């Protein structure tokens, strides 16, 4: 049996697990959708070609 404080502790723990999961999901959405990531990999791919352009 959990007392009141412990119940709150468990509830907060569960809630923070949900928030960190949401943060990971948010990061992954950024990783797969941001044009910055795409451009970064493209620039690595053609690094030799683009070096020197400005």
């Amino acid at each position, binding site marked *: 049996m959990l007392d009141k404080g412990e119940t709150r502790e468990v509830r*907060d723990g569960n809630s923070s697990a949900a928030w960190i999961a949401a943060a990971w999901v948010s990061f992954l959405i950024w990783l797969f959708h*941001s044009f910055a990531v795409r451009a970064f990999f493209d620039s690595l791919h053609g690094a030799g070609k683009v070096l020197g352009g400005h």
Partner: protein
Amino acid sequence: MAAIAVLLLSGMSAYFVARRLTLPGGRAVRVLATLVLWEIFEIIPVQVLASLQLLGVIGRVSISKTVVVEMVILGGIVLWSFRTPQPERTSDDPHQERVPRYVFLAGGILACSYVAFTVNAFTCYPLGSDVLIYHLPLTTRWLQEGSLAIPASHAWRFSLPGNAEIGMMVLLSSGWQPAVVIASWIPAAMVATSTYLLGMWISGQQRAAALTSTLLVLTIPMVEWQAFSAYVDLLATAGVLAALALILAIGPNGTRIPPSIWLISGLACGLSIGTKPVYYLYAALFCAFTAGALWHAHRAGERRLLKALALLILGLLIPSSFWFVRATAETGNPIYPMQVKLGQRVILPGYARSEITEPDYELNSVPEKYGWFLYPWTEWKKLPGFLKIPYGEGDGLGAAFATFGPLGMAYFVLLAFREPSFRARNLGLLGAFLIMFLCWWLVMQRVLRFGQVIAIFTYVLSVPLLASLQSRQRRAFAALFVLAIGTSSLIAASVPLHLLGGRVRKHLWSRAAVYSYPNLIDELPPGSRVLNATGDKARNFALIGCRLSNKLIANFEAPPDPTAEALRAVGAQYIVEIHPGGLYPEGSLASAGAVLIDDEMVPSGEEKVRWRIWKLQKDTHKTSGGSEAVQFNFP
């Protein structure tokens, strides 16, 4: 040498004053106060000299005269500090909570990215579109003419308040052009310290959470780019944040706000007001906030209230009033170039908002206006430019913002409505956020850069979420935090590293090679008046030449028709064109009496661009037939 002297003397003045003031709230408050005072002591002497020059008391503003004023100020401060006892130091610093190792790891990764930017900045020449279009052309003009007057053209770009440009002017006077980026470092430090203090305040002195939010702010690509550029937004942002942070950091737990804090907070906000008109709105919000804080001070007595109010207003006016007085004297409108309109009636002449910022400017960052709600995850840019990475001085929020920003706000909203403790404070903060967001959405034309204060405020409001995750989901949070900062830092650093690599490979070290212009521009006689008719406004600064000795007629000052009379009226001696794409039709310059003196292909990236330089014949140009001697403050 004079530039270094101005920096050192103003820094020493700030240090001595901050040491003698009663500043409760710990070391970070003292550091922030010192940074604000440093900016003030750097800017005010130039403003004083500029006022004297405009009144005709002195002939020119120069950096050597600024050094003399700085020395007088420092001397006065040293005498004052001998006579003023050092305030009793109370240990206001909260107990030193241990900072987790992953915060240092993330900080180290971020520092590497900043080092990449530093190396690139000091081996290159200043970059950034607004920097090249008007910030540096304006500062060079101030140096060349020894005056901060609004030019006769009344062009809006050369008529804005210019606190940030004063710092650039001091550094540019050294003759070492890459040094101008250093002007952004004090504002960057102010932003970091303010975020830390606001994080400490909102989290109830949780140092790890406050440091985490500070690192997150420094990963915002706009902030990182501006720290190594000569944009003015960073100083404007820093001023508003510092003004707020100083009052909030002192205010909790019933601590009475000392007079010095009211003054320095006002000075910080005044720095913003004297930097960029967009920040008038943020300053108005700050004033509304201080009205509430002053109401609290009212309980301590009417006299104290009046004193606090007087110091705050004095602080607001000291760094900003010069620009209002200058604009009133020269245009009749204190907030020139901003137009004041009541319905269809123009009350004060100037430029309409749409003439300064294109109404659909936001479409460079989002396909349509509601796209802003997805922007943190897409970071789309219509014309991404170099390497197609959509980051720059006005673009990008970074991986960390997408990860923690919106969620942090959602958490804070729940906290504000669910938690009874601090409910009034939290609802007030939410209200402030909402008002700022609405101002940005409705008045600031949704330009991302104009909302960087809001992005930083989002991180401050995210501190409760960060603190909660740090204590309850330690490992998962540590991994995500390091990953988000690492990803952002890696992508950001790739840009200066590519630029640097490109310059090494192609040996692009000279100014002409970096900006891709003909060497002849650097060889023109000092004082030559060069008109930018390239059709590319970002060429303005380049045409001033490597010794900064050409007098520029910027593209936005160029006459629409290149007749001999019109060219004579603006005082042009040389007209520079890029073909195709030049400002004037083929053959029009020849019929105006100009002679082609250079026609060459200049390498630009992987391509070559055709440049043509025309010289106006002396008989068609009697007013400035010979090159005027340009007086410089630098070698």
